[in-house]
């Protein structure tokens, strides 16, 4: 995948690009409005990660430019502004998703993959990881062709794990992914433990032992 990261904070830009490159993507960066506009005009990207508040201009203008052309580019807005109106405007203009800063890189990664999976960009709606097969349209999971019944949260958790495999995920990251704004309760972390354990049990029963504990309190989905 070829990804453009239009973000004027260089250190955030570097973090995003190095995280996404580890997933095997090719990342290019743009540090201001002019550079982003120029690159979007000249090259073809699969995904543009777009900051709305760019130096010298608004990311929304780049979004308009992208959507006016015939280019099949997925756009994911990252913004420091969490106002609903901005979000709606961005999505109305054709953005595929909207993420408010600060966000977890794992979350950004899973959002990008979700956007690409949607048929519009020619993505595959099924995810295969060894013997695990996930049909993201029907929200069903098969292990060795046998369907495994998961709760809604367990399904979300599995998808999040697989899209961020080989990464260490803290409970904080998982909690924010599963519950978003709702987590204001410190003890929701105990609940993560319950959900992860249930999922791990169901997978292990079918011989898929991939969820491992990392550093005592974190998790990692890995083959090793």
């Amino acid at each position, binding site marked *: 995948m070829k990804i453009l990261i239009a973000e004027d904070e260089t250190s*955030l830009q570097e*973090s995003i690009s190095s995280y996404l490159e580890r997933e095997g993507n090719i990342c290019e960066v743009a540090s201001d409005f002019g550079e982003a506009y120029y690159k979007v005009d000249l090259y073809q990207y699969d995904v543009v990660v777009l900051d709305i508040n760019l130096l010298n201009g608004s990311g929304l203008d780049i979004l308009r430019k992208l959507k006016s052309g015939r280019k099949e580019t997925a756009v994911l807005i990252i913004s420091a502004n969490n106002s609903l109106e901005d979000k709606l405007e961005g999505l109305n203009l054709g953005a595929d998703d909207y993420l408010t800063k600060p966000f977890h890189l794992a979350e950004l990664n899973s959002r990008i993959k979700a956007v690409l999976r949607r048929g519009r960009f020619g993505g595959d709606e099924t995810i295969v990881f060894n013997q695990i097969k996930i049909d993201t349209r029907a929200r069903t999971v098969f292990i060795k062709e046998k369907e495994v019944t998961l709760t809604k949260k367990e399904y979300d958790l599995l998808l999040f794990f697989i899209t961020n495999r080989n990464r260490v995920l*803290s409970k904080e990251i998982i909690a924010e992914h599963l519950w978003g704004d709702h987590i204001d309760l410190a*003890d929701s972390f105990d*609940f993560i433990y319950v959900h992860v354990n249930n999922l791990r049990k169901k997978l292990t029963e079918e011989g898929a032992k991939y969820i491992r504990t990392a*550093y005592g309190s974190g998790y990692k989905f890995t083959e090793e």
Partner: protein
Amino acid sequence: MMVLSCIGLYFVTRTILKNEIEEDLYSTENRVEHILKNHGILSSLPPVIEIRETDKIYPEYLKDTIIYDPSQDEMELFHELSTFQNINGLNYRITVRAMVVETEDILLAVVASYIGILILAFLILYYFNKSRNRNLWAPFFENLSVMKRFSLPSDFPIELKESEILEFSELNREIRTLTNKVRDDYRNLKQFTENISHEIQTPLAIIQAKVEHMMNGDGLDNQQFDHLASIQKDIHRLTNLNKKLTLLTKIDNKQFQNLEQVSIGSLVEEVVDNFRELSDAPIALKREGEPCLEMDVHLASVLCTNLIANALKHGGKKSGVQVTTGEKKLSVSNAGMEALPNPEKLFGRYYTGSRARGTGLGLALVQSICDLYGFLLSYRFEDNRHVFEVDFKPG
């Protein structure tokens, strides 16, 4: 003063009248005497003049007497002068009487005229002052209504009517300076809260990204990982605080104009379901009424979420939370040992009552939303439970 002069006037009038009557009596008596001397005969004219022959001569005397007056059919007070004269060899008693104006009548007349004058003076002064004051204070009242209509968020400065009165124009000048200062401060504050979101969230995003990088780096031990996870937790807290503050500011600025019909019952059910996924605390929902309100959906959800989250956070985890919707109210309660010590501070900003770590903005948000829509938020301690209740249609 008025009473004294009234009394004085009464006595003066009475004396004058009395003197006049006496003078009149004497002159009438003289005339009668004169006629008797010259013509020798004069019949009586009762009750005014009475002439009688007597055998002896007595000294003259003056007295008051009450006589029945047949023409008016009532008893009247008369002043009477009787003299005894020897005219042409005969002894006569000549009695002349004059009707006396009764004391009560004088008093009444005096008091009545006084009251009349007073009322007249009062009325004239009242209308005179009123019309004068109206003209004089017109610019003041006009400016007062301008000030009442003045709203801080508006983009226009206050427009006051000029006045020729020195004090008023001075007042106008001060009001103008004051409102301009307040408007500037308000704009700056608004600008600040709008900017802070961007200014704080971007560095937070960078910190967050770096922390995640470190988590995936090599050579980390468990303790370091825990530190990093705890940093993530605090970043989340800061983000939450920031979000709530921006939301509060937006509510205060009345930026939520998107009204819809919101069914509180089903909204609460949705929120409760969300919480059930998040916590194993028992949440009991009783839908006794189905209030339907015209408000912003997002704010309605914030209202319900914060009320329930508050109950869960403060002791509702073990004993559970009871959520009840009524015809026009929503109440959320959790068990407690005793009433909270500072109920008036509960709905203020940054007030955290117990050890529970929160932003201290949850209930402030609820209060803000209630203020915006005219709901009444109240706290009471009842049957060993803390009850928070929102009355959607108070009064």
